[in-house]
Structure formats: structure tokens, C-alpha cells
């Protein structure tokens, strides 16, 4: 299977601050990829690098085998819906479709028109007068009718109400089924991604913490609960993601390919949200562990 996005030691600096560093990922084609992490983790930076809006400071990135944003042909293959789904406030809905038709050689006019009609948008209405949900749908339509091979969406539903959120994601999913393209979608809410993604990247503190297919991630991560134990005394093949301790009990989230046989542990399955939270927790947990050792 080919890759839609490959990054090698990719990094981007703003002034003296690294917004993204040492990012090495390989996303195979045909997935709906969720990029999740807290605000300011570097999600937007990674997506802008992938769409060619930004140039990397370090490392390299290839999208669909080409350098992002380098040529009109490369731009035509990647759709991008930016954060807050910007549209031209002074232009009408029909103007936006015309803009898309004029600027994209592979423009699918029928699809764009049908989608607008289906959504109930009035072509003569100015985009500035649309609701947040309608605006997001218009931006999505522009991206979809370009008929991209990869669609990148940066927090597309962050500012939408729950209903508009569901409709937006539903529309996106229907289009992926119909036109078979890959999607990379970022959000700081796992609940948004849970329904639609089959591949997950967790980005915390400008570094990629974990990346992989959702099924595989869920199968290899376990929560262990049992008598208090030092994380260093866990088997070597059990990689500790997060650890919590009370006076008598320890709870670990571990990643391992091997089954867990230790009878001292109560093993529970994680859901996606638990898994993401465990990785987001990691940094603070590491600090807490140091404090714990000092206490003893």
C-alpha cells in the first residue's frame, strides 16, 4: 500500500520555539486519519506543512509522493479546509463555486452544485451571512469538488454545535465512501474522531507520541490495575504510557504486543478516549513519578 504522507524527522520552528519536532510518520493510503492533541500541540503546523502552506525548518515531508504545494498539479491533488473554515465574506455561494471551477482543473461542478442544493444553501447568498455550520459545509464543498486524493481538514468542527458537527462529519464520510480519497482530520476532541477515524496520531508538546491504526492501537494498549508497583519492575516488553499510584494501588496504561499473564493485574480494555488521554497525561505523569520517588 502506498503512503499518502511521509515525514522524516520533520520539524518547524517559529522564532526560537519548535512548534513541531522530530516528527517521523508514515500514513498509508485509504485511511481516515485523526490527528489529536491538546491546543498548541503542533497539529495545525503539521497540517500546514502537509498542504505546503509552511516550509519545514528541519527534515522532509512528502505528500502523495511529491513536495507539498510545489506545483499546481500537487496542489490539485490535496484538498485543504483550514481552521475556522474561512470563506470570502463578500462573495456569494455561487461565486465560491465559480472560484473553485476557475482555479481547479479537476473541478467537479455537478458534485458541487448537487451538494449545495442538498445542503439547502442559497446560491445568491453572501458567504458572510452564512451560519458557522453552513460556512464549514461550503468550505468542505470547495475542498471536495476539487476531487483531491487527500483531504486535509484542520479542526473543521471546532466551532460548530453538536448537530452541525455530526452533519459535517457525516457529509465528509459519505464523500470518502463515494470518491475514495484519504483524509487527515485534526481535533482536540477525541469524541469527534472516534466515530470517523480508523487511524490515529497523537501529538503532544510538538512531538508525535503514537501513530497507528485504531484497531491495532486498541488491541495493544491495556490498563493494568493491581497492588502498588514500581513501573521499572514491569516486563521489558511492556512499554508504560502512563502510571498512577495511590498508597496501595498502581494503575498503568501499557503498550505491548504480547498477552499479559501476570495474575496480579486486573487487565481492562481501553477505549480511544482513554488511550489518547493516557498519552496526553504522559508528560505530567513523568513529573509526578519523580516526586513519588522522592517521597519514599
Amino acid at each position, binding site marked *: 500500500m502506498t503512503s499518502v504522507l511521509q515525514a522524516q524527522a520533520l520539524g518547524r520552528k517559529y522564532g526560537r520555539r519548535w512548534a513541531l519536532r522530530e516528527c517521523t510518520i508514515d500514513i498509508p493510503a485509504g485511511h481516515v486519519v485523526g490527528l489529536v492533541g491538546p491546543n498548541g500541540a503542533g497539529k495545525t503546523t503539521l497540517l*500546514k506543512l502537509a*498542504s505546503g*502552506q*509552511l*516550509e519545514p525548518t528541519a527534515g522532509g515531508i512528502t505528500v502523495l509522493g511529491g513536495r507539498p*504545494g510545489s*506545483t*499546481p*498539479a500537487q*496542489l*490539485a491533488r*490535496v*484538498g*485543504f479546509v*483550514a*481552521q*475556522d473554515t*474561512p*470563506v*470570502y*465574506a*463578500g*462573495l456569494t455561494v455561487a*461565486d465560491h463555486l*465559480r*472560484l*473553485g471551477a*476557475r*482555479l*481547479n*482543473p*479537476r473541478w467537479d461542478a455537478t458534485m458541487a452544485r448537487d451538494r449545495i442544493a442538498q445542503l439547502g444553501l442559497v446560491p445568491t447568498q453572501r458567504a458572510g451571512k452564512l451560519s458557522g455550520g453552513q460556512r464549514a459545509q461550503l*468550505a468542505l464543498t*470547495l*475542498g471536495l469538488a*476539487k476531487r483531491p486524493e487527500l483531504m486535509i481538514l484542520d479542526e473543521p468542527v471546532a466551532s460548530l454545535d453538536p448537530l452541525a458537527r455530526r452533519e459535517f462529519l457525516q457529509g465528509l464520510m459519505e464523500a470518502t465512501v463515494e470518491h475514495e480519497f484519504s483524509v487527515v482530520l485534526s481535533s482536540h476532541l477525541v469524541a469527534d474522531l472516534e466515530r470517523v477515524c480508523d487511524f490515529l496520531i497523537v501529538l503532544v508538546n510538538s512531538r508525535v507520541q503514537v501513530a497507528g491504526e485504531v484497531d491495532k492501537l486498541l488491541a495493544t494498549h491495556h490498563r493494568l490495575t493491581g497492588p502498588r508497583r514500581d513501573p521499572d519492575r514491569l516486563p521489558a516488553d511492556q512499554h508504560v504510557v502512563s502510571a498512577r499510584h495511590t498508597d496501595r494501588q498502581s494503575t498503568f496504561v501499557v503498550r505491548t504486543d504480547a498477552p499479559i499473564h501476570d495474575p496480579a493485574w486486573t487487565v481492562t480494555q481501553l477505549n480511544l478516549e482513554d488511550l489518547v488521554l493516557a498519552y496526553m497525561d504522559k508528560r505530567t505523569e513523568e513529573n509526578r513519578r519523580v516526586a513519588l520517588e522522592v517521597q519514599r
Partner: protein
Amino acid sequence: MIWLTWRQLRGSAAMLAAVLVILAIVLALTGPDLASRYSAGITACTQDDTCDRFYNQFFGGHEFSFMAVSLLVLLLPALVGLFWGAPLITRELEAGTHLLVWNQSITRGRWLAVKLGLTALTAVAAACLFGLMVTWWSDPLDKSASESLALMAPLVFGARGIAPMGYAAFAFVLGVTVGMLVRRTLPAMALTLAAFAAIQLTMPLLVRPHLMPPITSTFELSKTNVDGIHIPGDGGATPRLSLRSAVPGHPGAWVLTNNLLGPSGRMIPASGDGAAITVSTTSGPCAPSASAGDSCMVEINRLGYRQQATYQPLERFWPFQWIETGIYTLLTLGLTWFCFWWIRRRLS
């Protein structure tokens, strides 16, 4: 891309076109009348040698419209830079729409090329029409204007001929460049205005006088170049002579320096009411009792007083227009190159 650029520009372009059409109509209706009254007046005044009075009267009667149209031509480039140049990029950045348009199947280099090209072309065309229309209309007035408002005078020069085209192109690209660097509309507009005003002042004060080597020459004193001779009534103080910013034989010349030379050929420093001269005011042609007329001037010339002036003659108006337009074109090209470099390398 051309369609999108035009779609975003057409509102303000229509407004500009409306102003242009109104101005064209007004100028076309009044221009021929102005020209015929001028030629009639000149024919009349050359017979009885009262042309100075005619000039004053004719120009005075149209001074307001003269100033108004000149000001309009001077302002147009600044307005283009302010309202077309500065917001061109900042508007997109502030609304986030650059992320929309730069992700269509078009490189941002091409996007910028079409945006810059089409808008600049519209601005230059408007400035060209404005400039040439006003130049045609105000021709009789320019011929009768006093030295400070003649064709070569710093204020008027920039409002005539082809120079406004250069100014408009430059102001526009300056606005775009500042907008790219500042990234916010209002500060970009303020900075553009300040920078453009500074350059528009620097040009006539420091650069334009040296576009071609100015001519330095000495002239006999006459009514053309002498503003007045102040002879104190009590005879105690020294009489003073003040010069006009004009040189005999070169009407409409742009006088850069203007000094009175004494009989020894040395320059006499001038104060507010002129340079001191040594001439008898108690007797002879310059005495109060002497008959009014040119005899005093003849006497001063006889004593050896002369005007020494450095000037650019009126014949250099068109060469200067071409050179200045060329300079602004080069500046425009330089800034354009910078814009393309910046949008590829730095802007995101």
C-alpha cells in the same frame, strides 16, 4: 484567477471609473472654453502689452479648479496605495482566506502575479487618464500661472504628464509590500501613507533638481526677475532689492538657487526683504523725487548688480517626466521582485 481578482476589485474599480467619467465630462465641457478665452485674451493683451495683468486675472479666476484637479491627480496614487495596495494581502491574512485561495490548484506565485498585474494595470490606466486629461485641460492655466505654480514647480510637476502613472504603480506595490511585512490592514495603510509621503517629498526636494545638471547663469536685472526695490523713505537705511524666482528669457523655468551679485561679482546675502544694495537714494534715478519707471533699474544694472540663478528650464519638462517615471518604474519592479520572493519564502 483573473475572474477572482476582478470580482474582488470591481466594486472599487467602478467607483474610480465613476469619478474618472465625471471628471472627464467636466473637463471636456470646460476645457475648450478655457482654451479659447486664453487665446482671445493673449491676442488682446499682446497689442497693448498688458499680458502680465491678463495672466493674473485669468489664473486668479480659475485658481480653485486648478488647485482642485491638481490635488486630485496628486492624491490618486496615494489612495491607490492605501486602499488597493495595503489591503491586498492583509485582507486575506486577516480573514484567513489566503488558506482557502492558496489551496486551490494554483501556486501563490501565480496568484500574486495576477493580483498585482491586474490591479496595478487598472491603477496605472486610471492615473494615465487622470494625468493626461488634467494636463490637457490646464494647459492655458499652466501657461499663465505664476512661478510658484508653473509647470516645473514641485507641486504641479507631479500632477501633470505621465509621472502620475509611475507614482500610482509605485504606491500600489509599496502598499502590497508593506502589507506583506506588517500583515495587518490598518497599520499597513498608515505605514504606506507615511512612506509614500516621505518619498514624494524627497523626490522634488533632493532628487529631481539633479536629474539633469542644472544651468547656472547671470542675468541683467529687469521686471522679470526683480520683485521690488525697497527704498526707505527717510533715506537712512540701505535700500534693498528682492528677486523673483524667475529668469529672463526662460519663462516657466524652475529656479533652484537665486542670488544677487554685487558690482564686484560677489554674492550679497539676502534677508527677508531682499539683498542690500548701494545706490544713492537722495539723488539720481533712485531718489524718491525721481520719476517712477525703469530708470532706477537701469541705474542698478549700470552699477553692476546682476542676478545669478541656477535653474531647470521649462524645455526639460518632458525629459524630466520620462526620467522620473522611469525611476518610479524601477522602484516598482524592485518591490515587485521582493514581493514574489517574500511570498514564496516567508509568508505563510
